[in-house]
């Protein structure tokens, strides 16, 4: 913890550190297909396989599906980005 | 290793292999290797109307990576055995 971090993410030095630091946080995961998944990142592994909770699937910006838990196979992942939680979801 | 072992036990049974290009081939499983490459004998293409050029193909080697599905014979599926093998595999990493 060397301070200067942005919005509670903490200062991260490497991509791997970033991935470690975002567990439990709301994220958006974009796949190569362009589909977005928004939810809470439960955990991830070295292949970028991802487990998410309260997952919402967006195709062309439209909500298409909801999953309680979701496993995403890492090879499909384009990026993982942290988000602020939707206002509607509250705490 | 789980599925390699499983398919080895399935040798001699009739299966339908569905490829990523939508071709479906039914035949007797002759052999399988660690990449899940598959050799089928006495083959016939499920939709012969659509793939007439496959009519004379009697056996074939299928590269594992082009497989989408394999339809399995119910007699060739021991659910309890699969559960045990899967748990063992999961523990092993």
């Amino acid at each position: 913890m060397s301070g200067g971090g942005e919005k509670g993410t903490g200062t991260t030095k490497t991509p791997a550190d970033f991935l470690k630091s975002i567990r439990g946080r709301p994220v958006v995961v974009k796949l190569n297909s362009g589909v977005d998944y928004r939810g809470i990142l439960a955990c991830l592994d070295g292949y970028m396989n991802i487990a998410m909770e309260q997952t919402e699937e967006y195709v062309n910006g439209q909500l298409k599906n909801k999953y309680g838990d979701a496993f995403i196979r890492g090879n499909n992942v384009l990026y993982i980005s942290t988000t602020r939680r939707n206002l509607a979801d509250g705490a | 290793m789980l599925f390699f072992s499983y398919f080895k036990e399935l040798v001699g049974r009739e299966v339908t292999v569905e490829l990523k290009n939508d071709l479906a081939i039914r035949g007797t499983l002759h052999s399988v290797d660690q990449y899940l490459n598959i050799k089928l004998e006495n083959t016939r293409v499920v939709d012969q109307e659509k793939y007439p050029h496959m009519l004379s193909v009697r056996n074939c080697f299928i590269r594992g990576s082009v497989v989408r599905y394999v339809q399995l014979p119910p007699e060739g599926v021991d659910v309890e055995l699969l559960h045990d093998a899967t748990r063992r595999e999961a523990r092993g990493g």
Partner: protein
Amino acid sequence: MASEEESAVKEPLDLIRLSLDERIYVKLRSDRELRGKLHAYDQHLNMILGDVEEVVTSIEIDDETYEEIVRTTKRNVPFLFVRGDGVILVSPPLRTA
């Protein structure tokens, strides 16, 4: 709770492990979806599913109006081996706690 260790989700594949012998939803490449009971899987997400329903979604263009027509084709298969490289997403049944 003796199974505290067993039921914890520490890595993504644990989500799949906990779904063994449960009905799961699988989203595959080329607009395919499966629902079936998970009987076996490995680290590549190769799977054997039982009592499977496959839904294939295709979009056709109407010859005259050029409207997009979404068509879904369903079929049932008793037992299916699914090669892992086509898997995009797996969703277990809703778990309580």
